[in-house]
């Protein structure tokens, strides 16, 4: 589906026939659009959706806060500042330029937040939340300064980045995001049972044999890196990391050994679908995918709040 019509069935046939090495089903133009634009884009949306959902589950469990999302520690703000700085000084022309700067911004944020909250041996969840809020506020101010001083041409790119944009992914970007997602999932899944226990209180988790401080530190860093990788490639796509964990908890239950894979897979499909809607709803104009996720997410979240299901 898209501005150039390739039917669903035709698409599937096309993919299958390419697999078998005969290319009679699609024209050259259609083949190029399908394999160089649409499939990679759907794949990229999937990687980003999976990363955000996975990180969302971890942050909600670690902070024992159902309202937590992957951006709660200010990673979004940090990478936004990085990305904007990159766009303004013209790094967008380089491979991984904007994304690289965004990732750097996210890394700085992670160090800042963990540094503020992790003074001494113990990381306090409330301190962590508060320092995230403060860092986010600080970065918002920086973002506004950068918007104020940037030229019109840059401003367009900046706004697109801030609203979340899945169209610009290059192959190295996708590989990098996929790498962080895979590695992150492996590390986080190893803490599945520990996450269950931590949601019932850190002291309880210790009493049940979890080395809470080391688990928390590793999980925070891992989930932050997964978030940072996704955000710096795609821009700020809201609600996915907040909503998908709740939807999956209602479906498969709160046991993280099931919840983590479920949220990761469903997050991938959800964002790929949302992106498809964003591309086609007002074709040929593309909506930012963040618009679709927020339009679905906000009402759903109000519904959750009213039902108090968490």
């Amino acid at each position, binding site marked *: 589906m898209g501005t150039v019509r390739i039917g669903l069935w035709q698409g599937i046939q096309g993919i299958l026939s390419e697999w078998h090495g005969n290319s009679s089903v699609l024209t050259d133009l259609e083949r190029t659009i399908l394999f160089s634009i649409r499939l990679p884009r759907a794949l990229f949306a999937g990687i980003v959706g999976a990363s955000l959902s996975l990180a969302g589950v971890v942050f909600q469990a670690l902070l*024992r*806060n*159902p309202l937590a999302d992957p951006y709660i520690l200010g990673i979004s703000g940090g990478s936004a500042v990085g990305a904007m700085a990159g766009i303004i000084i013209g790094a967008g022309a380089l491979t991984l330029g904007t994304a690289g700067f965004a990732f750097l911004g996210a890394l700085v944020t992670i160090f800042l937040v963990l540094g503020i909250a992790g003074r001494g041996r113990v990381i306090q969840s409330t301190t962590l939340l508060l320092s995230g809020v403060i860092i986010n506020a600080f970065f918002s101010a920086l973002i506004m300064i950068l918007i104020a001083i940037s030229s019109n041409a840059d401003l367009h790119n900046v706004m697109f980045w801030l609203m979340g944009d899945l169209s610009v992914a290059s192959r190295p970007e996708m590989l990098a995001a996929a790498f962080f997602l895979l590695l992150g999932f492996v590390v986080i*899944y*190893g803490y*599945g*049972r520990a996450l*269950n*226990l931590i*949601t*019932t*209180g850190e*002291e*309880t988790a*210790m*009493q*049940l*044999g*979890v*080395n*809470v401080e080391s688990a928390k530190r590793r999980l925070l860093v891992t989930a932050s890196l997964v978030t940072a990788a996704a955000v710096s490639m795609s821009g700020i796509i809201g609600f996915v990391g907040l909503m998908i964990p709740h939807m999956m*908890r209602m479906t498969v*239950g*709160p*046991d993280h*050994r099931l919840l983590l894979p479920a949220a990761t897979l469903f997050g991938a499909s959800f964002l790929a679908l949302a992106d498809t809607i964003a591309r086609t709803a007002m074709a040929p104009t593309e909506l930012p995918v963040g618009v679709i996720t927020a339009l679905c997410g906000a009402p759903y979240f109000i519904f959750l709040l009213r039902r108090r*299901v*968490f």
Partner: protein
Amino acid sequence: MKTVRADEVGFRYTDAWVLRDVSFGIEPGEVIGIIGPNGSGKTTLLKALDGILAPQEGQVLLEGVDIRTLRRSAIARSIAVVPQEVPFIFPFRVEEIVAMGRSPHMGRLTFEGRRDLEIVREVMATTGIETLADRRIFDLSGGERQLVWVARALAQQPRIMLLDEFTAFLDIRHQIVLFELIRRLNEEKGLTVVVVTHDMNLASQYAHRIILLNGGRIHALGRPGEIITESNLKEVYKADVLVDSNPITGLPRVTLIGHPSERGSRLETGAAPQL
């Protein structure tokens, strides 16, 4: 060898010492009651015994080993804690919560095996909560929840159980049910028990020995008859109590009277209490 030994334990959160010079040993199979006024260090002592807080002075020995050198999972296989309340934010089912008690016995990536599930069923039967297995934790009453925490602690198959004011919010029937359960586990399975409680009558009735804490120090330590005395309680709690003997068990029984000065003045003037 003592099951748990505190050796001149001193602990402070910030400047003021919350525990100081606390030394005692617990025999295997003993039931120890810890009583004392608010802020006397009862809960802190319990956390030090479990290795959750690291004392700045002295040490805690678990079966002869400095508890600081043990991994959390190793401690959790010996010591289980029954809390007053657990802050659940996600809708776990009762059976899932009890199964969490198996955690210290499980490998990192494994799910509960047949043996684990057997143990979970067993402890749910022991605590009488089989029928609650599929209920969500949010839908239970305070007494039912407390039974769930006890079941989870039992699923750890501990040798020592620490209970922190676990009957504080319960009605008298649930208090008795839980204390009788603890007594049965102690007598039948040789479980060592340490109970922090404000209820001196329950402590007197169920504990073999009682530690009376005051201002972070051990004021007195001994059998209920030696500890629960009018002079001890008056000195530590600054409140007048009547201690006589329970007509059924012969153990000390505490009746609250009132604040010494108020009571004195009322008696002198002969005024009836205002209602």
